[in-house]
């Protein structure tokens, strides 16, 4: 099966009927294995438990579409910690599903303090854009890439506090990280939009500062306001400004393999499958407008 190029969507359980109703809207499916796994904790025998019924569904989808993996558990930004057991489980899943690429986030969520077992920060926290973080994360990505043997993409982070006095800007950090780690950039345009709204910067200027030649996947999503902040809640319809950003960057993303729509399962009953299909069709129209022969695998 060729590396997917086109339009994909992140799997969640609420979407199960969608795949039979609107199969033509999808070229690939992105799977976050973590949401279908019970993690018993580091060192526990049989640590990663699969929910049998849901994995049967995934096996069915794998017969119909190429799968790519979008992880949330590498916690690449955690200093002095790499979860080797997590990688081993990813390798096992990779053997079974043959993911075309893997990705994870530029953040940290797992920590070990003293003799305590691994604990979770409950939300993805930002890493300082310093050389120290860059070297540490690049080394982890190189290790993952070497073990898995597929492309690996790093996703730009959404954050709710700015770390003062950083050595690099975010675009500089992302460019250097992709170079040092030999990975691609998963450009989450909604994350950029969220950050721009909460921290008052121009998202177009931001994306123009990126090395768009490193972008291999783009995420789009919707969000909503809460407590005076705009959140990356994956609530459904993609904001108009994010569509404009997609149209703006796509011609320069020469290595792009896919545009992936993210929607949280809790919003599916509210927005409905037709709305999901509309978002994917809109993404496809922009994709078709800008795709070149090199985008077709």
């Amino acid at each position: 099966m060729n590396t997917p190029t086109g339009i994909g969507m992140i799997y969640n359980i609420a979407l199960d009927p969608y795949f039979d109703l609107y199969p033509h809207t999808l070229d690939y499916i992105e799977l976050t294995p973590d949401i279908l796994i019970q993690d018993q904790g580091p060192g526990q025998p049989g640590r990663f438990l699969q929910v049998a019924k849901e994995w049967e569904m995934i096996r069915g989808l794998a017969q119909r579409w190429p799968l790519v993996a979008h992880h949330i558990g590498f916690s690449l930004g955690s200093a002095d910690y790499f979860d080797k057991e997590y990688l081993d489980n990813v390798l096992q899943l990779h053997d079974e599903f043959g993911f075309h690429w893997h990705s994870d986030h530029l953040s940290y969520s797992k920590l070990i303090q003293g003799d305590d077992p691994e604990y979770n920060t409950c939300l993805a926290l930002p890493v300082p854009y310093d050389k120290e973080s860059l070297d540490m994360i690049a080394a982890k990505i190189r290790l993952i890439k070497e073990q898995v043997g597929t492309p690996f993409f790093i996703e730009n982070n959404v954050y709710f506090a700015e770390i003062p006095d950083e050595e690099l800007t975010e675009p500089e950090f992302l460019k250097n990280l992709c170079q040092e780690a030999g990975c691609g950039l998963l450009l989450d345009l909604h994350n950029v939009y969220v950050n721009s709204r909460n921290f008052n910067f121009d998202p177009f200027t931001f994306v123009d500062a990126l090395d768009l030649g490193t972008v291999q996947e783009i995420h789009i999503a919707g969000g909503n306001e809460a407590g005076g902040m705009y959140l990356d809640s994956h609530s459904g319809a993609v904001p108009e400004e994010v569509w404009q950003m997609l149209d703006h960057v796509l011609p320069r993303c020469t290595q792009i393999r896919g545009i992936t729509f993210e929607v949280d399962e809790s919003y599916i009953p509210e927005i409905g499958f037709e709305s999901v299909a509309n978002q994917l069709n809109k993404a496809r129209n922009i994709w078709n407008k800008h795709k070149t022969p090199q985008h077709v695998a």
Partner: protein
Amino acid sequence: MSLKSFQEALAEIISSPLIGQAYYKDPASLEQKYSLTEKERNRLLGMIQQKSMKANYMLYQMNRLTPLTMLMNYTLKIIHPQLMPLLHEFWKAYPRTSFQFKDEIGFFSDFLKKKIAAGQLDMPFLEDVLNIDDALNDIRFDKDETSYVNDDFFTLHPLARVVHLTYDATALVEAMVTYDAAQPAPDVPVAPGYYVLYYSGRLRCYPVDAATAEALLERRAVEDIPEELVDDEILI
């Protein structure tokens, strides 16, 4: 080591606005607890002052509340009038989580049980409802569907559990559908004893005598088999 310390400190700070405020007022306490460079210390103090930090506090609380709302529905209805103070006390007592839903609901159940045992929490039906939620979650998270009773003739269905309750189980579960803590407590018959709860998307409750319940719990053969449990394929 220093970056790791910075990350530990930030993780602690986002768990409560009070923690950040305390460190801001007394930066020495931050330095005492964490091994930080001056730059990292200043970064954290700068972040604490940012207005946007409230989103981190909010998301931390929402993310910790999600498994409880999804999987301890009955319990949360009962404790609703005291929910936020109890949650803050819980998060303080259990500041670290694996973020696995099974662990988080287990921690919260233990926390509530300790308070009930210490006489610090007295709400109508709470102990029973907590036992029911625990049993349901034990069934939900038993991924191998391994039954804990298996004698020569009958096995308790993997989706069934034995609990001891003070109130009639069926009446209590029915009352919980419309339960509103702001209204007078519903009239649920007191019927102390053991019940078998069977959950397969829908909950069914069967009263059983003590001898049967103890045999099931101790994985012994059940001498006087309740016909209803066999007919309904709860004992299989």
